[in-house]
């Protein structure tokens, strides 16, 4: 990964210093791309803001399921954690009754893959925002 050159990195770190990096991570988790927008990385923020929620919605459209937290089923619990990675869209989808998942639908497993991977990608986006906030990139 090619890091930003010295002056840009220093400028970002300086700009972010007054704000808690963990607060930026929370924002980045809640709304995909918001952390990057907050940190002044507009282009990246807009791409994440569009691509990640769109992938999540596409997964729901394919009748994927939003998994519940079920400790007795470790794989379901892991899928729940991955789903939760998307942030607020998870709770919005839950509140409107989306993500029930229709097991007999031909696209059910594909939908699950899209929803789970969207959550995992947002976790990577949050880590990237954290690195930028700490001045490492």
């Amino acid at each position, binding site marked *: *990964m*090619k890091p*930003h050159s010295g002056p840009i990195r220093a400028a970002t770190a300086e700009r972010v210093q007054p704000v808690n990096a963990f607060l930026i991570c929370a924002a980045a988790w809640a709304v995909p791309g918001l952390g990057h927008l907050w940190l002044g990385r507009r*282009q*990246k923020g807009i*791409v*994440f803001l569009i*691509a*990640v929620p*769109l*992938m999540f919605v*596409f997964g729901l459209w*394919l009748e994927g399921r939003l998994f519940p937290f079920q400790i007795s089923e470790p794989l379901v619990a892991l899928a729940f954690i991955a789903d939760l990675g998307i942030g607020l869209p998870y709770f919005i989808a839950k509140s409107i009754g989306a993500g029930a998942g229709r097991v007999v639908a*031909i*696209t059910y497993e*594909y939908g699950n*893959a*899209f929803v789970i*991977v*969207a959550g995992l*990608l947002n976790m*990577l*986006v949050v880590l*990237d925002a954290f690195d930028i906030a700490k001045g490492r990139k």
Partner: protein
Amino acid sequence: MTSHLGLMIVFALFVSTVFATLMRDDPKQQLMFGARLFAGFIASGIVIGWLLYPLPL
């Protein structure tokens, strides 16, 4: 749209877009890297699909 190949292409498009944006800073480099990632996803999907074809499952 709901064929296996079609969904694989859409999946590869989303993942390569996010990865390229994460891993490169310059938009031109992002585009090049994203295109290479996308082609790699599709090519490996097709190759692995054909390798699995003879398996009796």
